[in-house]
């Protein structure tokens, strides 16, 4: 290896290392915090060596301020949102990507346009609408609101995957007597499964991590884990160690998904960079 290459690699490694450190430090800090006592958390200068305790986890799991019901709420809302989104987005994106119909461009723009609205501006109208419908603090209410964001995003993401499937492949399947539905099922969906994986994950994570709408439109019955963690911060004191423990639990599914779907996510995001190379 020549010198030039060596230095290049070294510099790249350092830059990458710094980047990773910046991202990882808060997570590790929170992880450490979650095993500290509240006293150790607030110690100044910070204590690096401390006696780890599981008290915080015990408290957020089975204690009086258990977040398990909240994790359940999050799971219900995120799962409902994801399933409904994909059920609607897949046919919609297929139509947008495939069929020729009048006003196709306009409807595509409309779908994207809904993404451009600042969510803050919507929260009061949404609150009023849900209130009038008696849907505040219900799974249905929160899920429907999430759908308004997740659907355009999912459709917009999936359209490009469907557009990448060659027309002739579909026609071949029609000639092979597959019919419309079986063509979609046997030929087209398998080609966009990378896109389906990526979209599903993003939609789920967005719903799982959402805070603002959950805090305003939820309540005592539907309180997602992000909101519940917020409750450890009160006027009198902030229970940082419990916040950290809750955050760790809330992150667990995110990390698991990221770990198992990493291959799909990376592949899905680079589709289109190499023509026809990404979907196999």
């Amino acid at each position, binding site marked *: 290896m020549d010198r030039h290459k060596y230095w290049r690699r070294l510099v790249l490694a350092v830059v990458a290392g710094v980047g990773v450190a910046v991202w990882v430090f808060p997570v590790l800090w929170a992880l450490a915090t979650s095993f500290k006592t509240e006293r150790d958390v607030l110690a100044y200068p910070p204590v690096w060596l401390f006696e780890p305790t599981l008290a915080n986890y015990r408290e957020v799991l089975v204690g009086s301020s258990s977040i398990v019901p909240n994790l359940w709420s999050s799971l219900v809302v995120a799962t409902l949102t994801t399933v409904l989104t994909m059920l609607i987005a897949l046919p919609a994106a297929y139509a947008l990507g495939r069929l020729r119909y009048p006003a196709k461009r306009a409807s595509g723009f409309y779908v994207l346009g809904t993404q451009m609205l600042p969510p803050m501006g919507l929260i009061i109208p949404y609150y009023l609408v849900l209130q009038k419908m008696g849907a505040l603090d219900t799974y249905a209410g929160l899920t429907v609101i999430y759908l308004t964001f997740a659907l355009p995003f999912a459709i917009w993401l999936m359209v490009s995957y469907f557009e990448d499937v060659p027309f*002739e492949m579909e026609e071949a399947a*029609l000639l*092979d*007597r*597959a019919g419309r539905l079986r063509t979609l099922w046997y030929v087209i969906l398998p080609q966009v499964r990378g896109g389906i994986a990526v979209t599903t994950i993003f939609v789920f994570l967005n719903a799982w991590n959402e805070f603002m709408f959950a805090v305003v439109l939820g309540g005592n019955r539907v309180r997602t884990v992000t909101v519940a963690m917020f409750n450890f911060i009160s006027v009198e004191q902030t229970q940082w160690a419990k916040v950290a423990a809750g955050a760790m639990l809330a992150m667990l599914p995110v990390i698991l998904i990221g770990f198992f779907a990493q291959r799909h996510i990376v592949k899905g995001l680079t589709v289109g960079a190499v023509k026809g190379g990404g979907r196999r």
Partner: protein
Amino acid sequence: MSKGSVRLEGIVKRHGATTVLHGVDLAIEPGEFFVLLGPSGSGKTTTLRILAGLEAVSEGRVLMDGVDVTLEEPGERDVAMVFQSYALYPHMTVAQNIGFPLKMIGTAAAEIRQAVADAAAKVDIGHLLARTPGQLSGGQQQRVALARAIVRQPRLFLLDEPLSNLDAKLRVETRLELHALQRSLGATAVYVTHDQEEAMTLADRIAVFMDGRIAQVGTPREVFAQPRTVDVAGFIGTPPMNLLPARWEAATLTIGTDRLAVAARTEAPRDVTVGVRPGDVRIGATGLAARVERIEDLGDTAITSFTAGNRLIKQKADRAPDVREGESVRLSFAAEAAHLFDRATGARL
């Protein structure tokens, strides 16, 4: 043996304001290897897609084995198609690709396995069944597409420029195999190409498409020897027929200031386009004054380009003529070698 006859009656196809096909009539006999030949945009592929049911007609009827299938879906027509891009299913193995049409009609798994093996053997890809299309060469993919088409023994094969993505050598080899395959299956094949060499070598009959109309239907020999219009004459042959404006009086043609004899006589003098195959052009002491531009010696043939006035004339011979580039010569042709076309309509006289 009557299975596989096709009739097109007055097919018109419009895309918005543009008309792609202006009334196409065609009768294809069972077991025939029928080629739709024409330049791009002439409507040949549209015609094939109408046969497949992938395009609806604006007017006219499509009949297969005497039954009107104009409104039938692609899957209902019992036709198979090989696409230019092959359109293999990339997520399936070769065996699954070939077996897909059978799976869709609910054939039993064991039966599919047998049929796939048979079809694969016919096109020599029996050893590739476990691979996916991405692991195959272009020629192998092409064979998979063929196997998928023949596996359910349809009454009609539609082939859309199936050889155009292969390299030249493979194209010629595959052409021969394709012909043998069609003969052994005895099924009707409709084959679209813009390559007239493919058309001439494969076809029982050719339909030459020009601007959304069929200019001529005939055997390769007929189309070559008796082109019905000046467009067909200018399209068929390598290099294509030389076409020159001329004045025809009695049995004499006047091209520029030079006069040449032809076999046919006319009562009234008229303006014509005269066509002469490059192989019929002779270099001699009499005839049309021309200058040698370029000699392309291909070894077994030689193509010589001449300019006569502002016209380019090509001559084809077994060996390079004994002339030098830049030399002035005279060109002539046998009286019966001239093809005469009406100057205004382009129709053969």
